[in-house]
């Protein structure tokens, strides 16, 4: 019996190793002291982190990506949250159409969106500007905000909004003072996902960044085409740590919301 159970767990462990291995390897490699790619590294050190922090090209690309992602968060969270509140109350045919449009960037192949915006934006001088990348990334980020906020909206008690309205609050005040505070966790989680989406995006950046707006993934792509030095491992490790931190925050927000809900249920 124990052997029968052991074999499946071993298979699962091996598959999980396959999933985790690449990230572990990049992590270890970033602390290599060698001048070239070799695994396992002969010795460890911060050589490649120093190379990254000492290179103004890498740092400029990093700042641009952070700035673009922050702008995408502001745009997509504002537009997406208002839309999610509206969409759930729309009559069914319009709701289905708008949901399909808003969520479609999740399944439309990246290259089609990328060359579409490249085709249109090049006429308006938006290629090679960070503005163009922000505008296009926002479309990719919006689905995450809308799904996250919609899930929060589905969980709140409609009686609270009705109570506010019947006590004389205007619809605007109800939205601002009742609905928004209740869905804040969903908005925050959506904002975090929007940030990661923009920060990691490559294909649109390849077409829109030109020479004037080189984002971090674009810079990594250019570097990978010509050389394979471990600076990229250091950059990758830093982005993995940033992503993991943001995911941990998203997880904590969700867990706290559920705890609050359970406490309310007990009372």
């Amino acid at each position: 019996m124990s052997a029968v159970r052991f074999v499946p767990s071993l298979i699962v462990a091996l598959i999980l190793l396959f999933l985790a291995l690449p990230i572990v390897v990049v992590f270890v490699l970033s602390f290599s002291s060698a001048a070239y790619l070799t695994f396992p590294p002969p010795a460890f050190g911060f050589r490649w982190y120093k190379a990254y922090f000492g290179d103004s090209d890498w740092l400029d690309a990093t700042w641009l990506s952070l700035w673009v992602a922050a702008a995408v968060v502001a745009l997509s969270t504002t537009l997406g949250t208002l839309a999610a509140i509206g969409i759930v109350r729309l009559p069914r045919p319009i709701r289905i159409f708008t949901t399909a449009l808003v969520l479609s960037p999740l399944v439309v192949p990246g290259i089609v969106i990328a060359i579409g915006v490249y085709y249109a934006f090049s006429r308006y001088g938006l290629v090679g500007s960070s503005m163009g990348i922000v505008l296009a990334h926002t479309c990719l980020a919006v689905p995450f905000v809308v799904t996250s906020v919609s899930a929060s909206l589905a969980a709140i008690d409609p009686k609270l909004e009705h109570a506010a309205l019947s006590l004389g609050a205007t619809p605007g005040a109800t939205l601002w003072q009742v609905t928004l505070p209740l869905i804040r966790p969903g908005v925050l989680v959506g904002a975090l996902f929007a940030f990661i989406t923009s920060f990691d995006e490559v294909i649109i950046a390849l077409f829109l960044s030109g020479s004037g707006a080189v984002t971090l993934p674009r810079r990594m792509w250019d570097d990978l085409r010509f050389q394979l030095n471990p600076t990229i491992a250091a950059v990758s490790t830093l982005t993995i740590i940033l992503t993991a931190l943001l995911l941990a925050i998203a997880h904590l927000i969700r867990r706290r919301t559920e705890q609050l809900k359970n406490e309310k249920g007990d009372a």
Partner: protein
Amino acid sequence: MSDSSMTPSMRILGGRREWSRWRRDIPWLTPLLLAAPLLLYMAVFYAIPVVSMLLRSLNDPKWSLDHYAALPSDVVFLKVLWITLSTSFIVTLATLMLAYPVALALSRARSTAPLILIVVLLPFWTSVLVRTYAWMVLLGRHGMINEALMALGIIEQPLRLLNTTLATEIAMVHILLPYMILPIANALRQIDPSLALASSGLGATPWGTFRQVTFPLSMPGVAAGMLLVFVLALGFYITPAMVGGSRDITLSMLIAQEVDQLHWGYAATLSTLLLAVALGLVAIAQLLPGVGNTFRTSK
């Protein structure tokens, strides 16, 4: 009260009253106004750009179906289409085989489930570029896999692993695994545990219970995962371009090449085709029972 005797503030009030009457008569007016900024934004910066690009397949240089008519005899296109479809198919099957055991463990394990979820989700949210780079390191001539095989004495010379079709497939399976694991685990979690209990109570072996009860009931998740993975695999660009062989050109890579050479008509034709297949498969997925909302929770 005549119009001329109205003070400005009364006029505003009148306007407000009219506004509330509008809102009462058309209950979805306020929701539509809330959604309008986003819909307008998506139309201007996403839908219209993509559609106007796709239209180039019909009007470049003049209105005709010539670009589409030329496809069946276009040798390059047929070869690229075959590579894209066969790679996506192989990757989907391999992903399914690796994902099912993990999904099963994820849905059953109590104590280890959070750990499994972290191992599944962290790569899921790590950039495709970083994950592809990791595979370049692992599969390279002096990469970890070659070094390990040589240290074990299995091979004498490093194998050519990077820049092969196999490298593309391995990296794609790695990137797409979470998209298969999550819908299947979701479907497995929704199965009533008393069904498996009843099955074993009636004398079925654990394998018999799995084969005749659990597995058939998990099919909605399997179908959703397979369709999602296949659709995503069709559009892969970064990974085959970086770790694939020089002849492994996917549809997305061909589209990018044609755009570089400003062959917009041809690029738009290929894009229309890729988009039609992707949306067609998603539409089929929505029609399958119990599959529809899986797409909404996935990345």
